[in-house]
């Protein structure tokens, strides 16, 4: 029997290894799996490379992972927050955390390419800019493209809305954002949901992330 459900959030994050690349869903606060991140804080994995759109703000769990020196590298499009992120700014200034800045669409596409088994793709984004420095640029039909390589996560931490025991997922509103693309890209995909429903409850037409991509689901009621 296929059963991706785990009983508690400690079980959900069990076994995340030091040095892992961890994909974290969310756009600002929307769709960010803060509860899973709290559990990762407790779980103890260090030397992490985190891949996410923003880099936390205020004193959220991402900022506290950074403050606890648990993050080696941040791959993101926008490491700034309206709440401010002095922890990241300090670590960055002191070169204690590496930053790989990736345009948002390229970030999503690199993660998708990783999940899709592609070796890379040519995007017009960033061609002729500083963010293409050191990358192969190539002209097709008169337009310049940058070669981008896939990202694969050892772990994906995703917030969704509802799941079933097969790990099928639906999301809530704008919290969908990076969830579907990251869920498909984690070697170990861990999902927090508000509610786990009986198998067959989710309409096959409406499933956004098929359960094949999901390894563990924990129900949090929020």
């Amino acid at each position, binding site marked *: 029997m296929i059963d991706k459900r785990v009983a508690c959030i400690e079980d959900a994050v069990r076994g995340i290894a030091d040095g892992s690349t961890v994909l974290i869903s969310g756009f600002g606060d929307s769709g960010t799996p803060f509860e899973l991140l709290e559990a990762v804080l407790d779980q103890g994995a260090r030397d992490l490379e985190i891949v996410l759109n923003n880099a936390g703000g205020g004193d959220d769990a991402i900022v506290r992972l950074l403050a606890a020196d648990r993050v080696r590298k941040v791959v993101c499009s926008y490491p700034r927050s309206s709440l401010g992120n002095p922890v990241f700014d300090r670590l960055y200034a002191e070169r204690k955390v590496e930053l790989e800045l990736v*345009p948002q669409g390229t970030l*999503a596409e690199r993660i998708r390419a990783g999940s899709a088994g592609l070796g890379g793709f040519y995007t*017009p984004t960033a061609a002729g800019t500083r*963010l293409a420095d050191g990358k192969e640029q190539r002209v097709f039909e008169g337009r310049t493209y940058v070669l981008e390589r896939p990202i694969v996560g050892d772990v994906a931490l995703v917030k969704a809305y509802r799941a079933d025991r097969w790990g099928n997922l639906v999301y809530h509103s704008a919290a969908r954002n990076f969830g579907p693309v990251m869920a498909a890209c984690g070697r170990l995909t861990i999902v927090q949901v508000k509610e786990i429903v009986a198998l067959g409850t989710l309409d096959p037409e409406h499933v956004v992330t098929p359960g094949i991509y999901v390894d563990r689901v924990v129900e949090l009621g929020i």
Partner: protein
Amino acid sequence: MTGLSREQISWRVAQDLPDGAYVNLGIGLPTSVPPFVPPDREVVFQSENGLLGVGPAPAPGTEDPELVNASKQLVTLLPGASICSHSDSFLMIRGGHLDIALLGAYQVSAQGDLANWLTEGDNKAPGVGGAMDLAVGAKQIWTLMEHTTKSGEPRILERCSYALTAPRCVTRIYTNLAVIEVADGLQVREIAEGLDFAALQRVTGAKLRPAPDCRPLRFVA
């Protein structure tokens, strides 16, 4: 200086959005454009975080904390709206499906080069967000900005001094002082009331030429 307020720049842009246009709103000034769209037009606003058909801010008590726009402001969805993932949203953006992206800008060059993500004096970690994807992807890029910096330095230049977001992408520039078309150089379509062409040229770092039908730029309540 004479000219439009920031809010009036947003108003001015809104008057030019055609009925039926699909429009992305960059963070900052562009997010104040939608309320000024004339009520007889249906304009569909896209938000890079996977929303198409973004509506106004929610009424108090109806907020959904997860329903935010690219600036992380609370929004609503209109009838006809749809939600998609980030990869699908940037397929839409990069693939040339949006008619117009409204973007803030630090600098724009006479060739339409855009600089809107990195200033030289800023020591904080850089952030680019979706700006580069929007700049290469939308059919038209309209920038909204003050005509000069606070210290009076021009933002419209022969060459941008700041790092580029994308080369040759801006098609129209809206400032507090002018509406400028980027087409084989910079053509001034409107000049703020009370300002003459020579005065506009003096606060601009690139050569301008007036459109044959150059009109006054004025706010009409």
